[in-house]
């Protein structure tokens, strides 16, 4: 019963963590806008969220038989690192650059603003979820 209350919260928490990772990725791209040879990265957000919440169909999970084995699914840090790595793609350059830098500042700024709004939306979902649960507990 209780997990019904927290299931939505878990999903939003995973989404929030992925949003903050994407925010950092875009910040890295903006920071390296003048670095020669830097290749811009972008995250496949839908796929990463599916893998983080365990709803992916084709996500490979390592089988573990001993306590010391590094698993791919249950262990939070390893799994999140793996999925973050696997879902990183290289952004296709829209214009060529003499120093082989592929950061498109217009696109990065747009992605950054988009990600900011969606991060705040997820935060509001979490807050309203907490408020709903609290009002249900207090019964007022």
């Amino acid at each position, binding site marked *: 019963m209780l997990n019904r209350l927290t299931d939505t919260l878990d999903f939003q928490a995973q989404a929030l963590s992925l949003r903050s990772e994407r*925010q*950092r990725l875009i*910040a*890295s791209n903006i*920071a*390296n806008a003048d670095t020669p040879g830097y290749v811009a*990265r972008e995250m496949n957000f839908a796929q990463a969220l599916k893998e983080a919440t365990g709803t992916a169909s084709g996500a490979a999970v390592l089988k573990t038989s001993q306590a010391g084995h590094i698993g791919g699914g249950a262990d939070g840090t390893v799994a999140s690192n793996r999925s973050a790595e696997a879902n990183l793609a290289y952004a296709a350059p829209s214009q060529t650059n003499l120093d082989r830098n592929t950061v498109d500042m217009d696109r990065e700024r747009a992605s950054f603003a988009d990600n900011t709004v969606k991060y705040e939306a997820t935060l509001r979902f979490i807050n309203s979820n*907490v408020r709903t649960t609290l009002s249900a507990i207090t019964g007022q």
Partner: protein
Amino acid sequence: MSMMNIFNVSGSAASAQSQRLNVVASNLANADTVAGPDGQAYKARQVTFQTQLVGAQNDPTAAGVKVSSISEDQTAGRRVHDPKHPSADADGYVTYSNVNAVEEMVNMISASRSYQNNIEVMNTAKSLLMKTLQMGQ
């Protein structure tokens, strides 16, 4: 907290851009110098940026910037015929620095825009973090 690393990433970029701005300033200041302390005319300097991973265990999503080297432009300086100048050579020519003022101004505006971009990223990250801290209230 992956959001905390944004300050490292954007902070390193802002610091690198301010170093570039510093180099531009010294180039512009020396645009008309004739001879430096070593008796040679001033040579324009240029910074080179390099990606530097600032996150834990070489995380590719936290890529900051550092200034890897500062190189000197080796092209010949501007030569002006002025036999009355105290630094003129035997043929009456004075060698000025090889700074191209237009190039430096473009460089300056580019550095200042990149600096502003990174500061804005930090401001946005800060306001998001403040909202995250108030979660559930």
